[in-house]
Structure formats: structure tokens, C-alpha cells
């Protein structure tokens, strides 16, 4: 961080008013200025201006942040906190402040596992086998804490048909309204194949031809959040090619069914200035796209009491709060019940919960209290990290609440027999 950097310029947007404090999960948990958005921005500025050293304390505070970006939703001064955090974390890596076992393991897993579909597939299969043989308890004892936590968070591994690649081309049903591309995602593909299939089903039913372009890569969100911006850039470059430079005529939209991926793609213009602007402009969350283009097929009845919990990277990073609620409300018979703190982070935050299990549990607890009070039959959210965290929380409390992506309910309302999962 130095005073000529883009990062430093970004910190100057903050006038230290403090309106972000009450929306920051780590400030609320600790009561500490240093663990608040305002505090972190001040640290970044302080480092750049040479008032404090770039040391382990700064590194800890920047990695204690969940990156939920709730602060951006309330910042009157328009600080682009998420972008600042990514750049600052990159500099922590460059400065050799991310050396321990945890960071090394995280980087290794993100680069060599998450971004490699075949390896990820084999890895998830292996977990399925371990669980089937009931060896997971033993594994929990043998694995490093973070990995054991990760294993516990994973939902039941879906059957292999649901983990097969999505069809590369699916025709529109009825009158063709357009042609969209779908980002398959890494975790989404392995653990939420039903959501991918539901997404295609709802899109085609509403007149969109769906292409799942070859050569697409992981969106790079988790890499960027971990400070590995160079790897995130290389992934974004592959997606620019896959989604904007091949496949004939341009797509009407590049649709994502994961809030984290959508936010990363929309902001990839910041990673690859000039190069990724086209992809960023085309990207739409599935709920956003359906809301924008309108449903042409009438959903059938679903007599369900449903809560919708905002993924941070949809409501805060993309500013989308109404679209998913409008879509769910369009289902006849479905009762959408509000719950307190719907736009508060659930404590998953990508890989964050693995490194901060205790604080994550406290944050999740508040969320579950609100959900329990609303007592829905289904709890919906549109991001894999949130789905995992919420499912694990609901299960731990023994609540009879199904956790699903909103698009799954919409697909069911269309009468599609999508093999669901809890």
C-alpha cells in the first residue's frame, strides 16, 4: 500500500462518519473500532501514509473481515470497500504476511482444487465415499481443524447424475425470447447440481435458450477474497473468452445462480480493466434476469411458508433485494414471511467460517433465532456458501426447515421434478 496506489485513492472516499458501524458483523461482535469497516479503511490509509507498519495486526484485521460488504449498502460516501479489501489482501500476500499453514493450505486448495473441475469432482466423490463408509468421524479427528469444519459444513453429496456437467445447450420451450449463457460454477456444480438444472428449466420454460459454454472457469471470487488476485485475473480472462469471444452471436445475458459468482463477474472489470467490461455488463443473477425479463409461463400453486435470506453478495455487492422476493411472491399459494435481519450476513462468507468457527457460530445463531421466530417451511437463499451454512445451522438445531435456492421453488412451481435436496 503506497500513496500512489489505486487502493490508497479508494481509502480517501471515507470521511470517517461511522455510519457503517452498526452493519458490520465483526464490529457488532467485538465492539472494536479496529474490527470495523471504518477502522480497516483507516488502517489501510495509515499504512499507505506510513503512519503504521504493514504488520501481522493489520493482516489479522483485514482477514477478520467477512467481506460481506454490508458497509457498502449504508455508506453515504460510496466507499468501494470490497475492492479495497481485495487489493489490500493481495498486498498482505506480497508482503509475506500470509505465510502460515492455514493461508498456504487455503491458497493450495483454491488454486489446485476449486479451480480444477476434474480434481474437485474426484475430491467430492472421495468425501461421499468416506461418509458412506462412516469414516467421517475419524476424519474429523485426523484432519486440520479448518478442513474438518469444511467437511462438516458440506451438505449430503448429491447422487452422481446431479454432479454430471450441465447440458451444453438446451432449447427454449415455446416462443424463443433470447439466448443466454450460464456460468456453471465450481461448488454449485458439485454440490448444487439440482439448482443448475432448475435454473435451466426455468429459463427455457420462459423462452430462453440456454448455453453452458465450454472453456468457462471458476469465477475467481474466492481467490480474490483471499488476496490471490493474479489467479482471479487468469480465471476471469478465461471467462471473458468463453462468454464473450466464442459461441457465435453474443448472448443476451450471462446468467449466474450463485450470488458470489455474479458479484465477481460483474466486478471483473476492476480486475481486468477494459478487458472484462463486456462480460461484467452482460452478467445477471438468475433472479435479476427473470425479474427484468418477466415470467411468461404462469407458475403453479405451492402452498408453502417461505423465508428469503439475502446473500450478502446479492444484496450488498449487487444491490439486488426485491427481485428474488418478487419472483417468490409470483408463485400462487406461496406465503413469503419476513424475518428480522434478512440482509445480515449468515457467517459463512466463503471460506471465512472455516478460519473463524466461533464467531461464525455466533453470527449464525442470531440468524437462526430470527428464522425460528418466522418458522417457515422453506428457507431460501441464492448462494452456495449461505445454503451450506444455513443448512448446517438448521440441521444442528433440529429444525424441520428445508433450505433451498429460490429458483428451485420456482422450478417446482412449474411442476418440474427436480430431485431436490435439503
Amino acid at each position, binding site marked *: 500500500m503506497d500513496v500512489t496506489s489505486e487502493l490508497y485513492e479508494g481509502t*480517501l472516499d471515507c470521511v470517517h462518519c*461511522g455510519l457503517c*458501524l452498526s452493519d458490520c458483523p465483526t464490529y457488532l461482535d467485538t465492539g*472494536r473500532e479496529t474490527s470495523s469497516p471504518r477502522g480497516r479503511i483507516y488502517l489501510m490509509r495509515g499504512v499507505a501514509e506510513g503512519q503504521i507498519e504493514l*504488520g501481522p495486526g493489520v493482516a489479522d484485521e483485514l482477514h477478520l473481515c467477512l467481506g460481506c460488504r454490508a458497509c457498502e449498502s449504508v455508506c453515504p*460516501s460510496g466507499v468501494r470497500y470490497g475492492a479495497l479489501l481485495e487489493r489490500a489482501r493481495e498486498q498482505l500476500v506480497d508482503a509475506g504476511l500470509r505465510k502460515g499453514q492455514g*493461508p498456504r493450505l487455503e491458497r493450495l486448495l483454491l488454486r489446485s482444487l476449486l479451480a480444477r473441475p476434474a480434481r474437485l469432482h474426484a475430491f467430492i466423490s472421495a468425501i461421499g465415499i468416506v461418509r458412506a463408509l462412516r469414516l467421517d468421524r475419524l476424519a474429523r479427528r485426523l484432519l486440520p481443524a479448518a478442513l474438518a469444519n469444511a467437511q462438516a459444513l458440506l451438505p449430503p453429496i448429491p447422487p452422481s447424475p446431479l454432479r454430471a456437467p450441465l447440458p451444453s445447450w438446451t432449447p427454449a420451450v415455446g416462443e424463443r425470447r433470447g439466448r443466454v449463457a450460464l456460468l456453471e460454477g465450481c461448488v454449485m456444480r458439485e454440490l448444487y447440481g439440482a439448482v443448475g438444472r432448475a435454473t435451466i428449466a426455468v429459463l427455457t420454460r420462459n423462452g430462453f435458450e440456454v448455453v453452458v459454454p465450454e472453456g468457462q472457469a471458476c469465477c475467481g471470487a474466492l481467490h480474490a477474497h483471499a488476496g490471490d488476485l493474479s489467479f482471479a485475473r487468469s480465471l476471469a480472462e478465461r471467462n471473458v473468452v468463453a462468454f464473450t469471444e466464442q459461441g457465435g452471436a453474443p448472448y443476451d445475458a450471462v446468467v449466474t445462480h450463485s450470488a458470489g459468482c455474479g458479484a465477481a463477474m460483474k466486478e471483473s472489470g476492476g480486475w481486468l480493466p477494459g478487458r472484462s467490461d463486456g462480460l461484467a455488463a452482460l452478467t445477471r443473477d438468475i433472479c435479476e434476469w427473470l425479474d427484468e425479463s418477466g415470467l411468461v409461463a404462469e407458475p403453479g400453486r405451492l402452498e408453502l411458508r417461505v423465508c428469503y435470506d439475502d446473500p450478502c453478495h446479492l444484496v450488498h455487492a449487487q444491490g439486488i433485494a426485491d427481485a428474488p422476493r418478487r419472483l417468490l411472491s409470483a408463485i400462487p399459494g406461496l406465503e413469503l414471511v419476513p424475518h428480522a435481519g434478512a440482509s445480515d450476513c449468515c457467517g459463512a462468507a466463503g471460506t471465512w467460517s472455516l*478460519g473463524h468457527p466461533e464467531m461464525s457460530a455466533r453470527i449464525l445463531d442470531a440468524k437462526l433465532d430470527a428464522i425460528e421466530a418466522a418458522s417457515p417451511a422453506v428457507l431460501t437463499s441464492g448462494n452456495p456458501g449461505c445454503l451450506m451454512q444455513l443448512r448446517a445451522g438448521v440441521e444442528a438445531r433440529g429444525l424441520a426447515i428445508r433450505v433451498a435456492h429460490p429458483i428451485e421453488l420456482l422450478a417446482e412451481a412449474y411442476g418440474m421434478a427436480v430431485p431436490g435436496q435439503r
Partner: protein
Amino acid sequence: MPGVRPPQEAPTSRSDAELIAGLRRIVGNEHCLTRPEDLFAYGCDALTLDAQRPAAIVLPESTEQVASAVALCAYLQRPFVPRGAGTGLSGGAHPTPGAVVISLTRMRRILSIDADDRIAIVQPGVVNADLSAAVAHHGLFYAPDPSSQQVCTIGGNVAENSGGPHTLKYGTTTDHVIALEIVLPSGDVVRVGSDTGFAAGYDLTGVAVGSEGTLGIVTEVTVRLSPIPEAVETLLAIFDDVPSACRLVGRIIESGMVPASLEVIDRRTIEAVEASVYRAGLPQDAGAVLIIELDGAACELQAQLERVRAFAYEEGVRGLEVARDDAERARFWRARKGAFGALGRLAPDLYVHDAVVPRTKLPEILEKICEIGDRHRLRLSNVFHAGDGNLHPNISFDRRDPDELARVIEAGREILELCVAAGGVLTGEHGVGNEKRDYMGLVFDDVDLDAMRRLRDVWNPDGLCNPDKIMPTTRPCMESNPKARGYDAVPID
């Protein structure tokens, strides 16, 4: 992926070691912060000029812990500074070098709510807006509503005697606080006032509210709650210029009406707000917008609304919008309350001034304030509580530019002198802090100031409790307490 590691920096001197060891015994390691990052982050509140570094920060969770920490500081003759959310604009929570910051953010429980007697007892770290939210289902609210109410604490409000847009009708914090528990600078815990609102003897609650943390640390607050009015009407009156908006304010007040709120936002501020997340559809070509809020019994309100409408047209209003529902009303208020932060879009820093003038002089004073801004080549904007003459001239600047910073300070001085000469005072709601202490001489003579100093010295005889605030340092007989001043600053760098 480690969590935040426990504070482990080596203390910088022997007396620091003793202090920090003691503080850790009181609040526990986790809640005593001494890393350089913490000392840096707690160097200032929302006034970023003149930041200093404390020796440690403690986050106690009980009155007993506050009292012990204060007693330790008193024993070691170490200055200490109470802090809420750090949203103050006069540097009231700025530490002196080597001081201990006592942060009350973990004491955030609402201890009791008595809906029938309309009182609540809260810890000082309770967030202002959270209190109103917690009592809303009783049909009650906590009236003082500073713009930072979503984050600022009741304890901080008590220290600064905070106001807000609704001060016009509902008064400031002092009108809503009836009893306090205070840890005195000696470490003794006292209770002042009573939960009935009546107390025999000296009105010590009145003394403590607005004392800016210089008389002790408030650890419990009994507040009065107000009934949510039966009906509310919120209007936006759009004008070509600020003086016209001020004239309508005068007409409304002189007619005998008591609106809940009369707030003016000028063009530059409108532009900033409309570029922010708090945009409310304010017309960007308007010279000024006046927010008028009327509340009370539904049967009276319609007649008031018609009168306001008639006055507005007589004063040449360009447009008049009435909030259609609570959502739209909330949008208007978010725009107003996000205004300061939104002005952050114009430059890296914002100097939020605060002064009060007789309401009738608003048009001429505002004109002169704008002249001062122009003369110093500064970007000045105005958002203010017009109904009670409480001005907030805001200057956008860059603190890295020493020449501009000097002009900001000079313009600020001229604005204050102007307001005082017009019969006004130095601050309406932000407090004196360390920001304006050297201007106290503009409104008080030596005898006045000496009376204040002697009052402070009764509870804070060693001057350890929030030193260097309120009382001026520039005049010989008003020097701050020698013990506090003579304290050897701990070298931190």
C-alpha cells in the same frame, strides 16, 4: 486463517507495563487492546484532525469493570477518555497521548423498559436507533435523533447532549434523561436524578448531560420515552434559494405552530445525497429543499398542513411534495441523515461545523457564511436545523493539503465569530471537545470560564478524566490542569 491474535505488543515503558497488566486483570486480555493498529484506530473519532495515540483501549462489560479501570488510572495518575461509537464531530473522544480509552461499546444491554411509566434504563453502549426500535411495539420512541442515530450510542448522546432534526419540538438529550449512574474520576460510583424525573437537591443529571465526558463516565442511563404521535405529515418544499426556504421557516414558527422538524438542505448537499445510496429523488436543480414535519393529533394536522401550504405559496415555493406513506417519509429522512457522509463524495475530508444563531438572522448569516467560504476558495455546503437556528456549514477539503487545511481552519474561525457576533453560540449539538475549546473565550469571559473550571475540578480534580476538552488552553488563567498537561507522553512510534 488465524483469528485476531491476543494483544501481545511489548509495553513501551515500566509504568505502561504496570498499567496494562492492571487493565488486563480488570477486563481480561481479550478486551484490553494495545497493538499499534488499535492505538492508531482509536486515535480519533469522526473528527480526524489532530489524532493522537492512546496507551491502551479497554472494553469493559460492567459498571464494576469501568470503576476498576478508572480507579487504576486514578492511582497511576493516567488520563482516561470515555468513548462510545466514535461518531462525535468535535473530538470529544480524542485521547491525549498515553491515555487509556475506555470504550463502552460492549455495554449495550437495554436493562429495563417500563411502558406504563414510559421510561427505559439502558447501558451507555446501546445504539440510539436500537432503543427506539426496541420500544416501538409499545407505541413509544426515544425522541433525540442525531443524524448518526443508526450507530451512535446513548452514552455518547448524554456526553454531548445530542440533538437532531426533531429537537425543535422534542428538545435535546437533556430533556429526556432523568437519572444516571456515573463512575466518578475517583472510581466511586454515584447515582444522580431519579426514575420519577424529580430529584431533591442539585440537578446533577443536568450537570452531567453535556459535560462531554469530563466529569466521569456514565454507566447507566434512565431515559424518558415519548408516545409515537398519532399522525405525521412530512413535506418537501422546493425553493430556488436558501433565503426563501428560511423565510418560510420564519412564517411557520411566527404563526405559533410547533412543527416536529424544519430542515434545510442546500443544492450542493442535494447533489451529493442524490449520488449516494440515500438518494430520495430530491430535485437536483433546486436551490434548497426544506423538510417540514408536522406531528400530533390527526384532527389538528390537516388544518396545519393547509396553513403551511398557504405560507409556502406566499413565499414562492417552486414545488411542494407530501410524503405519501411511511416508506417515503423514511426515504426523505435517510437522505437528510446521510447528508454529511454523502458530502464525503466531494473531497477526502469533511469539516462539519456546528453553530447556533437567532433564527430570525438565518438568511443574512447564511449569505455571509457563503461569502466566507468563497473568499477562502472552499467548497462549502449547508444542511441545517432551520427551526432552531442550528447551522451546519460543511467544508469539503483534503487534509493532506496544508494550505487548504489552513484556510479551512481560518474560515471556521470566521464563521464562529460571525455567529457569536450575531448573538449566537459555538455549538448546538456537537459539543466543544478539543475542536472549539480555544473559541470559548468568544462567548465567555474569564469569570464565566473560571466558574466552569471550578465545577469540573470538584469531580475531576486531577484533570485525568477526558483532559484537554471544553476548557481553553490559550488564555493564561484558563490553562488546562497542569498534571494532565505535564504528563509525559509515551513515545509510541
